[in-house]
């Protein structure tokens, strides 16, 4: 058994090559181990002090978000709020202020929960995970990373170093909405995210929609690419129908499968409408749940 606080990325990757598991904020790993549910790994390497994983860098290609960037940082970063609003919408809904202080984007992605709030925005925005190990670095689109609840295609020695998001085209906007029973310390009943690009005549040039908590992983709604050139209202309704049709949720204490299948369609329609309003230049503050009044009243 061992515990080290890594001071360089190489040190962290060496520890993982020797079998250690990474811990950043511990908001999944340590909480999961409370009350003996899932024992902590025997060997741990803390990665939360690696400054090379804490940076947000951007250029013409897009933005790179270091794996240990916290939800709090995402919700307060001007570029992420303006150009990747869906992600900021989601990070602002995670847990409570304390959860957002310790919870990281890399931890979220690698925990691979089908209910994670940041998952649908990242998928809709076309995110790619950068996985590093002593053997090298590879880029994995999130749809290829997530295999099931808590399951990824990453090898045990691979550390998520960063999440890369492409630069949005002009006329783009994005948004995330979730159905919730309370405002804080909540897990999405269902959720939907949309990244949309409008043509100069206001019709839809490109649209992607992804769904939260209706399948073993976050899923993208298939078939929407045929809707290019149609008005937003038509695309929104098509997204609603497709989202409900493609969802295959479970029933649990939070909601029945039927309720999830219906309500994820409603979320999909509303999130397409909201993303299009943002794409058209309208200011809809983050988090969108509060701005358009979804969920519990204050």
């Amino acid at each position, binding site marked *: *058994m061992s515990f080290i606080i890594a001071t360089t990325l190489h040190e962290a990757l060496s520890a993982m090559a020797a079998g250690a598991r990474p811990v950043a904020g511990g908001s999944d790993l340590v909480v999961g181990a409370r009350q003996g549910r899932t024992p902590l790994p025997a060997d741990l390497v803390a990665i939360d002090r690696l400054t090379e994983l804490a940076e947000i860098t951007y250029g013409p290609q897009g933005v790179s978000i270091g794996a240990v960037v916290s939800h709090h940082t995402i919700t307060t970063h001007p570029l992420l709020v303006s150009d990747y609003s869906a992600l900021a919408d989601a990070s602002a809904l995670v847990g409570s202020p304390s959860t957002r202080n310790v919870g990281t984007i890399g931890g979220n992605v690698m925990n691979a929960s089908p209910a994670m709030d940041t998952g649908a925005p990242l998928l809709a925005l076309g995110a790619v995970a950068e996985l590093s190990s002593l053997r090298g670095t590879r880029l994995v689109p999130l749809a290829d990373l997530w295999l099931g609840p808590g399951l990824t295609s990453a090898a045990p020695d691979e550390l998520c170093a960063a999440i890369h998001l492409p630069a949005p085209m002009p006329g783009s906007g994005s948004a995330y909405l979730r159905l919730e029973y309370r405002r804080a310390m909540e897990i999405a009943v269902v959720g939907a995210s949309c990244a949309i690009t409008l043509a100069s005549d206001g019709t839809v040039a490109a649209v992607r929609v992804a769904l939260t908590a209706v399948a073993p992983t976050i899923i993208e709604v298939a078939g929407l690419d045929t809707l290019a050139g149609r008005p937003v209202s038509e695309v929104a309704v098509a997204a609603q129908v497709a989202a409900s049709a493609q969802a295959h949720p479970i029933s649990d204490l939070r909601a029945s499968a039927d309720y999830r299948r219906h309500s994820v369609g409603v979320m999909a329609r509303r999130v397409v409408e909201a993303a299009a309003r943002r794409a058209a230049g309208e200011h809809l503050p983050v988090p969108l749940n509060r701005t358009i009044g979804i969920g519990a009243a204050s």
Partner: protein
Amino acid sequence: MTQPSHVSIVLTVNGVDYPVTVDQGRNLLSVIRTEIGLTGTKEGCDDCECGACMVLLDGRPVNSCSYLAAQAQGRAITTVEGLADGQALSNLQANLLEEGGVQCGFCTPGMLISATALLALTPEPTTEDVSIGLSGNLCRCTGYTKIVASVMRTAARP
């Protein structure tokens, strides 16, 4: 069976260095309460839901029940005992008492920690800001109204 691995660390709590030897999987809350002996910080749900265990880590609220003690070395930890100046309560503490924001008192340390962090970050909060800032802290007694009022009063007359 592998034996639990112990790590020797120094935790800096309310400005005082405490050398402790703890199991690597030990949470910060239990070390603060049991090894260091500061029992103001409470264990409520032990599941990162209720906020009774809230402490400041480098000035930001963190649920200490679900944070590894070994990860806190080298960081400045502030517990509720660190908010008062000797016997002199902070303005927030005094206002919480005067406004009736304390009933059974179990949530109070966590509320004080979250509210202290909120006021440091947002000196002139709206009631909505206060609600969000305290959204990780549950109270079963007050209905929150008096707690929010005492934070607003502290912001108005710090």
